[in-house]
Structure formats: structure tokens, C-alpha cells
């Protein structure tokens, strides 16, 4: 889609420390120019996605659901590149440390949704050994097809990104996990990595949640991430295919994250589709590019239908983690009335982790957080499967979240 007239670039990620704006109202900025930064380790800088004039630095709605400081830039339509955006001729000669520095400097973050800074993920803590990279091409959620599209159109870039990460991590094995219902993506990725024996495409069973780190590691490596641990504890790094393509763009083209593929879908959108959108494009602009909203549209979601955040206003901008913009109709968005739990156990069967969802929820109702802890509330990955299957329409996950928060606050063990 064409770049919008205004972009709104938030100075906060979904995860990580907030950023300090490097520009002020009236400044002229160029495409790819760094406009926000933080000294904290768990943070990545952010860059302008257009060239033009800064018209405001003010609080704006953030896709995380709150408001956050944002730099608003009026696009001059010239896409004048910043001096720092230079293609790198001899990137094969760069050392792992230099590559990692580029990943950090170009603001590469997890593009699956959490926007966790990629350079942090690729810095394996001392004492842990990683032997496998998993490229996550298992679309995280229903409705979303952005990664599918990317694998078809940018398969070569993804493979290049994988090769760069293998070098950074100093390892020799990578899997590309793709759900078996996307044979075209499997073919495209197989063709792209045919020359590199270190990389294998692994078709995965189609299920939700398959694109979650823990599920991918179990499916591909038959290892379990220890309860409370990180993927590195199971010897793996998991990275979204979008992130890998962004790593390639950062290293080879010198281009920071200024665009991403966004799925615009849901039955509140007239013509659903995938867009290549600039970071900072307001949701409304993306939705209009897809024919606009239907009259009965009632809910706007950043991300997918299972884990995404619903937003009060379509003025929220696309960020690096916006895999999808979902608009739901009245019928889908209405919140059904809760009935008492009939203990059917469907949530237990649906939980991919082994939590007892309804038992945690009932413990929360009683205010018994010690029991909630015993039923493994802290292991919940908040995939929402329990709520999806519940015939009594109970707000199970919402209560598990309350349990997690309260257990943390009280420091229960």
C-alpha cells in the first residue's frame, strides 16, 4: 500500500523499556533515520518509516492498549533515505559481534507480536548452550496470513536471515516450522534453502497454538522448555520468519524496520487482505485500503483473535509487532453471558500446557491464590484455548491472568 500522509511512531514497545525521542517538532527527518532510543539493554531503537517533517511529539493511542509518547511525521512523499541506510557489500566478512551490533542498531524486534528486542534474544546468557534455530513460520493465530504471504514472496530473504543468525549464534542447525496446510509455503521455503544443508523445512501438524515457542520446540526437537524457563534452556532460539527477513534487510540493505506485512481481516472488513504497510500507519488507513469497515463492525484488534489486544480507536498505528488488524462484527464481538462451570473438562483437554484452567478460575473466585498456584496458573501461556472451547462461556483466562498478577504481587511460592 502507498505510504500514508502521516505516520505515528510510538516511543514504546509492547515489551522492553520506553524510548527517548531524538527529534522534536519541526525537525526534518529522513527514511530510516533513528528517532528514538534508550540506554536500557532490553530495548531497541526505532527509526522513521518515511521522510518528512515532525509535526508533533505527544501522547497517542498505542496498540498495547494504553497511550504512549509518539513522534508524528508528515510524509513528504520523497522517501529520501538517511545516510545510515547503506547497503553492505561484504556482509559475509562481518564477525558475529558486528552482525549483532547491526541487529541492535537497526531496531530489529520480534515481529510475531511481542516486539521483544532481537539482539537480546540472540545474546545467549552465559552457562546456556543453544544448538538449534527455529524459524517460526507457523502462523501464530487463526485469521493471520502475513507470515504465509511473506514466506511465498520473500523466501530468499528469510533464508538469508537464517544464515546470518546461524553465524551470530555460531551453530549449524536450523528448522523452518510451517504448518502442513500451507504446501505452497513449504515448497517455496524448501526451494530457497535447498543449497544450505544446515537448514531444513519441517511441516507441522495444523493446530492452535502451534506457533508458540514452547509448542514449536516440543514439536520439532522433542524437548520441553522447563516450567518457568526460556527456550534457551531447551537449547533453542525461536524467531519469527518476519523477524528473520528484517534481520536480512538490516544487515544487507542497511534498512531498519520501517515496513511489515499486516493481515487486515475479520468479518467487519469489506475486502480482507495482506498489506505491506509502513510502521506508524494508522489502523484506519489500513482498513480503508481494504474497503473499509462494515456497518456492524464493533471490535478492532491488534494481532490475532486469540491473543490480540482490542483497541478503543482505529487511530492506533501499526507497529513492528502488528501481525494483523482484525475487525470483528457485532455478532462476534458480543460478550456472552457466563453460566456456572459444568466441569466438562474441555478446557483441560484444550490446554496445550497442562494447566487445569477451570480449577485455577474457581480458585480465583474463592480468593484462594495458593490453590491457583498449585493448579499451575504461572505456566499459562495465555493462548485463550480454554475460553474458546468453554460451553459455559466462562472468563477463564481473564481469571488466570488475575491469578498470575496476584501470585506475583504476593510473592507466593
Amino acid at each position, binding site marked *: 500500500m502507498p505510504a500514508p500522509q502521516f505516520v505515528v511512531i510510538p516511543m514504546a514497545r509492547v515489551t522492553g523499556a520506553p524510548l527517548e525521542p531524538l527529534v522534536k517538532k519541526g525537525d526534518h527527518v529522513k527514511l530510516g533515520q533513528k528517532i528514538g532510543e534508550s540506554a536500557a539493554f532490553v530495548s531497541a531503537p526505532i527509526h522513521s518509516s518515511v521522510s518528512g517533517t515532525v509535526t508533533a511529539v505527544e501522547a497517542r493511542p498505542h496498540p498495547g492498549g494504553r497511550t504512549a509518547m509518539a513522534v508524528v511525521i508528515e510524509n513528504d512523499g520523497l522517501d529520501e533515505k538517511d545516510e545510515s541506510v547503506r547497503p553492505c557489500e561484504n556482509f559475509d566478512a562481518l564477525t558475529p559481534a558486528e552482525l549483532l551490533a547491526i541487529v541492535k542498531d537497526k531496531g530489529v524486534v520480534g515481529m510475531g507480536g511481542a516486539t521483544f528486542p532481537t539482539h537480546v534474544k540472540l545474546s545467549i546468557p552465559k552457562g546456556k548452550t543453544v544448538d538449534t534455530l527455529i524459524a517460526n513460520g507457523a502462523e501464530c493465530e487463526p485469521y493471520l496470513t502475513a507470515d504465509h504471504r511473506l514466506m511465498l514472496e520473500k523466501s530468499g530473504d528469510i533464508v538469508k536471515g537464517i544464515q546470518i543468525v546461524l553465524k551470530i549464534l555460531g551453530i549449524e542447525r536450523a528448522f523452518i516450522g510451517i504448518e502442513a496446510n500451507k504446501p505452497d509455503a513449504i515448497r517455496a521455503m524448501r526451494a530457497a534453502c535447498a543449497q544450505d544443508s544446515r537448514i531444513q523445512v519441517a511441516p507441522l501438524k495444523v493446530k492452535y497454538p502451534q506457533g508458540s515457542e514452547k509448542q514449536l520446540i516440543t514439536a520439532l526437537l522433542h524437548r*520441553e522448555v522447563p*516450567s518457568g524457563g526460556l527456550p534457551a534452556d*531447551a537449547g533453542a532460539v525461536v524467531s519469527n520468519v518476519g523477524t528473520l527477513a528484517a534481520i536480512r534487510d538490516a544487515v544487507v540493505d542497511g534498512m531498519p524496520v520501517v515496513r511489515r506485512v499486516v493481515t487486515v481481516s475479520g468479518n467487519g472488513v469489506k475486502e480482507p487482505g495482506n498489506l505491506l504497510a509502513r510502521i506508524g500507519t494508522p489502523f484506519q488507513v489500513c482498513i480503508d485500503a481494504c474497503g473499509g469497515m462494515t456497518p456492524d463492525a*464493533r471490535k478492532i484488534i491488534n494481532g490475532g483473535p486469540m491473543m490480540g489486544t482490542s483497541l478503543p480507536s482505529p487511530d492506533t498505528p501499526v507497529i513492528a509487532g502488528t501481525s494483523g488488524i482484525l475487525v470483528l462484527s457485532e455478532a462476534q464481538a458480543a460478550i456472552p453471558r457466563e453460566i456456572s462451570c459444568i466441569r466438562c473438562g474441555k478446557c483441560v483437554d484444550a490446554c496445550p500446557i497442562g494447566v*487445569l484452567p477451570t480449577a485455577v478460575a474457581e480458585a480465583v473466585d474463592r480468593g484462594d491464590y495458593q490453590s491457583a498456584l498449585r493448579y499451575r496458573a504461572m505456566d499459562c501461556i495465555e493462548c485463550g484455548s480454554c475460553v474458546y472451547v468453554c460451553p459455559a462461556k466462562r472468563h477463564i483466562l481473564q481469571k488466570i491472568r488475575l491469578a498470575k498478577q496476584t501470585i506475583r504481587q504476593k510473592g507466593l511460592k
Partner: protein
Amino acid sequence: MYVSPSPHIRAGTSIRRIMLDVVLALLPACAVGVVMFGWNALLLLCISVLTAVVTEAVITRLLRKPASVGDLSAVVTGLLLGMNLPATAPWWVAVVGSAFAIAIVKMAFGGIGCNFLNPALAGRAVLLACWPAIMTAWKDPFAAVDAVASATPLAAMKAGEIPDLLNLFLGKTGGCIGEVSAAALLLGAAYLLLRGVINLRIPLSYILTVFVFTLAVSRFNLTYAVAQLLSGGLILGAFYMANDYTTSPITPLGQIVMGIGCGLLTVIIRQWGGYPEGVSYSILLMNLAGPLIERATRPLVLGEKMKNPFKKKEAGKNA
């Protein structure tokens, strides 16, 4: 615009739909019962369902609680209770049993999802304790009209005979209205499995336990063991009552323990107990053990026990 925490979509299932499926699944067995035993069977089934629904409606009205009969769970309870009556029973037995099941066993403990005993079975147990003669007056489907007296297949087996297996399977035998036809009950169970309403953990572990235990007790008399499976309320109990959502464990392992426990108790009562049939009491006893079973069978969460060869190798190297 609506704003709410995720997830934002839900499956189209509902309690009402589930209960409707159970009712549909029970209808073939009811039909066989009516064909075998005549119009009084139909009358009992209708009275039982009606009493259950009216009782629940009156109680929710009196307590000023939201009306809950729309979820159809009272229909299921009434139907199951009716199916557990002998066809010769007078109409007021259905009224008393059904009202007790709903008022005392279900609503007194908080309504749907809160009872700790299966309402229909507890209702039947009360009737059996109060009016044992009425509750064991079996009608022989082959005898002349209104002939009361004839043993159930289980009673016959206790006396040393083995009834014809095909008749047992199809339902040409004595017993309660809804328990006689294994074929019709299995047809309904297949539908529930297909609809994802039930799973096989409790039914299969229950039936297998009864089969293996009976085989062992009878010194490997296969015909006898199969006859035991097809007789009495085992199929009805295993597929429609032992796996009752509310009164069985929610943990997968707990469900298997529940099934095995029911199986063991059923055979013990059938072989050495005072009653020829043990399905009702074994399920009720296991209902009571449910919370304990559930507590002891919490599933392991992903990564709770290290199933991680990579890490083990690591640890070995360091040591």
C-alpha cells in the same frame, strides 16, 4: 467499539447444545424401551422429564435465581431417571424420584455444575431404598400382557443361567426402561463421540475393567463375561452417567481411575453383593471419591518434569 481482554472469539458450543445432543442420543434407547414394555414406559419417561423441569423452574423462581431450565440439563436428568425405572412402576414413583433428583441432589447444592452426586442415580437410589418391591418388579417383554414377574438377565445369571447374547444386545430382555438395548445405547454413544460431547476415557476403562475382572472371576468364561457387559445398566451407566461432566474428575488420568473404580465396584457388587446389579451404587460411590481422585491426578505441565535429553547430556558432561 468494544474493548475486552483476549481471546476475542469463542466456539459455537453451549451447554444447551450439549444437553440437546445427550437427549437426542438417549432417544433410540427410550424408543426400544417403549416398544418392548408398552405405553406405561412412555408415560413414566414423560412424567419424569416433566417433573424434573417443573421442579427446577419452581425452585429457581422461589429463590429468585435466573431461570435455568433453558439449558436442558433438567430434561437430561429427568430422562435418565425415567430410563432407570422398571416399566411397571406407578406414575408417582417417577414424580418422587425426579423431584428428589432435582430439588435435593441438584438445586440444593447450587444447581447445574455444583452437585456432587449424579442426580438421576441418586434419585434412583432413594427409590430403591424406599420402595424396593416396586423398583424390582420387572416385566417380561415376551410374556402375556401385564404379566409381572420374570428375572432380569443379571438375576438369572446369579442363578446360574446365561441368556441369549443377541437378545441382550438388541434389548429383548427384562430390566429398566432405558437399559435393555445395548445396541440403541451404543448408537447414541457413537453420536455423542462424533459430536465431541463425550470422550472414551471413562466408558472404555469402566467397561474393560468389568470385562477383565468378570473374565477372571468366571475362570475365563467368555460368554458369561460378554453377557455381563450387555446386561443391566452397564452400557447406560458407562456412556451416560459415570462420565457425567459435573460428577466425574476433569483430569484425563482421573477419568481413567474413575472408570476403573466403577468397574471394580460393579463386579464386586454383582458377584458378591446382595443386589444383582451394581452399576448405580458403584458410580455413586466413585462420585464421592471424585474430588480426591482429581487432586491426586493433576497432569504434569509442559516442562515440569525434565524430558530433555539435551539437558541431561549437558548435566552428565559437567559432572
